[in-house]
């Protein structure tokens, strides 16, 4: 391959531009070379036709069901979608409607509160859990890892259904446990001021299985010699954890925070199955609002605009988080 590359370089000779003639020569050489390199690309492509054949099925599906819909979503967000007539371009009207709507503001606020509370909590508890598990023997490690990962493989549909049952006012397990602790029962999902917190508490009590497994994997790749050196310097276990383990895990922390923030901004299943966004707009979230706008009210243009806004929110937050969390490096 390297050989081929040097050959390619030498044939691309372009004369120096020292005179008018030289300049014309140079230009024509450029054109010729452009033609040549196009031809060469064509040749390369023919030589590698098998590679394209291998890629083709995936590329067709990718183009049809990802590229086209993404581009289309942006176009739709500037249109008023009509089923009978042709669509009308309304430019920024949809976006104006999105930002002026009470429901959207509430959904954005709720989703943000939900994310700001649950993501740091889940990442930190995952770090602590992984550290505790890491200090145990092989058998205990496997057991706890399985116990914490099992809820992650179970569909959120199932988790949401059982939590709706556990949050039941009269017969629910949650109020029963609270009663044992001497607290008054709460109509968790039925009240405006507790419904969002019920969803948040639930998310906090579901272990962040992916986080625990990734942290454990990263921990086992931290070099023992770092800890040995710290032991010689007289550091205790907690100091070692704070000064060695946590800094060494920064890449995992960045990745997990990004991952769970993105996931958190897409919270949907719990909402539709447990509260339907209510009471009022108390638990309305962005994706649930998109679902309602698009597939209950069939306002396609508006729903597309909402989803584009969601995309930009997630994009901006991801970039910011990545920058902030990687700053210390």
């Amino acid at each position, binding site marked *: 391959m390297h050989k081929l590359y040097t050959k390619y370089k030498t044939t691309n000779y372009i004369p120096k531009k020292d005179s008018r003639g030289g300049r014309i020569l140079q230009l024509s050489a450029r054109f010729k070379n452009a033609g040549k390199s196009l031809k060469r690309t064509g040749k390369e492509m023919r030589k590698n036709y*098998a590679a394209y054949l291998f890629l083709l099925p995936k590329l067709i599906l*990718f183009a049809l*069901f*990802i*590229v086209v819909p993404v581009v289309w979503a942006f176009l*739709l967000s500037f249109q008023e979608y009509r089923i009978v007539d042709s669509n009308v371009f309304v430019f920024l009207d949809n976006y104006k409607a999105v930002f002026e709507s009470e429901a959207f503001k509430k959904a954005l606020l709720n989703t943000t509160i939900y994310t700001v509370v649950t993501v740091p909590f889940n990442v930190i508890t995952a770090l602590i859990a992984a550290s*505790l598990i890491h200090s145990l023997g092989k058998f205990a490690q496997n057991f706890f890892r*399985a116990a914490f990962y099992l809820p992650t493989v179970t569909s959120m549909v199932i988790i949401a259904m059982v939590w709706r049952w556990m949050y039941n006012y009269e017969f629910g397990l949650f109020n029963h446990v609270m009663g044992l602790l001497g607290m008054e029962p709460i109509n968790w999902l039925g009240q405006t001021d507790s419904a969002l917190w019920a969803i948040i508490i639930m998310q906090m009590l579901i272990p962040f299985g992916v986080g625990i497994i990734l942290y454990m994997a990263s921990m086992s790749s931290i070099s023992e010699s770092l800890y040995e050196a710290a032991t010689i310097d007289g550091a205790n276990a907690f100091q070692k954890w704070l000064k060695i383990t946590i800094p060494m895990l920064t890449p995992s922390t960045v990745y997990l925070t990004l991952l769970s923030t993105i996931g958190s901004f897409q919270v949907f299943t719990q909402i539709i*199955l447990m509260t339907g966004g209510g009471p009022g707009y108390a638990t309305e979230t962005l994706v649930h609002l998109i*679902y309602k706008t698009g597939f209950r009210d069939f306002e396609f243009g508006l729903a597309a605009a909402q989803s584009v806004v969601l995309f930009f929110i997630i994009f901006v937050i991801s970039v910011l988080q990545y920058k902030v969390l990687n700053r210390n490096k």
Partner: protein
Amino acid sequence: MKKRIKVNKFITYLLLSVAAVISLLPLYWVFSTSLQLKSFQDEDLERPTSYVNANPPKMYPMGISEYVEHWGKARDAEKAGDADQEAYHREVMSTIVKDTFSGFKNLFEKNQMGMWFFNSLYIGVVVTIGILLLDSMAGYVLAKKRFPGRDIIFWLIISTMMIPSQVTLVPMFIMIRDLGLMDTHWALILPDLSMVFGVFLMRQFMLSIPDELIEAAKIDGASEWKTYWKIVLPLARPGLAALGIFTFMNVWNSFLWPIIVLNSAKLYTLPVGLKTLQDANLADFKLLMSGAAIAAIPMIIVFLIFQRHFVKGLTLGGVKE
């Protein structure tokens, strides 16, 4: 010093055990409620007729203790020679068994649980096989071949991984409708097959396959397809296992898109079926938890068998470029 280590160990186990109980309690509650006695009549003892709606909640399926109790009484009656009493307790025992499993019976007889289960299973298998084939082919050439446009294609694929899937909901809905695929399983399978995470994962995995093996196959005169099928695929087996499990899990659990495109009850997948079940029986928690239990069991089994591959897949996917 030794004592302190022991204390530390004890605290570690205590904390983790409490957390593990919190983690597994909801799942336990699914199974416990699904098997709880619901409309059990025991006039003899004037017990409440429903243990599902009991305050305080019953912590385990009461059928177990009731069954043991009546079994004991039936035996006592048998010893005492009281045939009537014995027959009564034997009847109660069979009522207990029937009532314990009545949620599951209802699901399969009055609802189409069997159909939903089958739909989820076959769609999961079809998509998983398709993804494994398509993504390993694409990942192989992206990792091991040099051809014009390779890097552009790779980066185009990677960059779309950042776009939240909700963005494509509306256009995809219009497309599927215009293609006449609404309310068919194609509406689930085709978009699922286009997911690109696997391409990324397979490419990362294939990078670690030594070039020499592929070169050697070429020198031996193997065709491109044969090289891929006989040399590359077997070497990629751990990666394929991880990708396969994650694909199956995602498809099995997928929810938002299926509730949008499926309308006929006989075409539902499990999550869609569970949602409509809940919409129609908001307060029948025994029935709802029975459905949840059936949907949960396969993934739990898959996880317990293939735990190793889950860990592998997660750490592979977490590798940063």
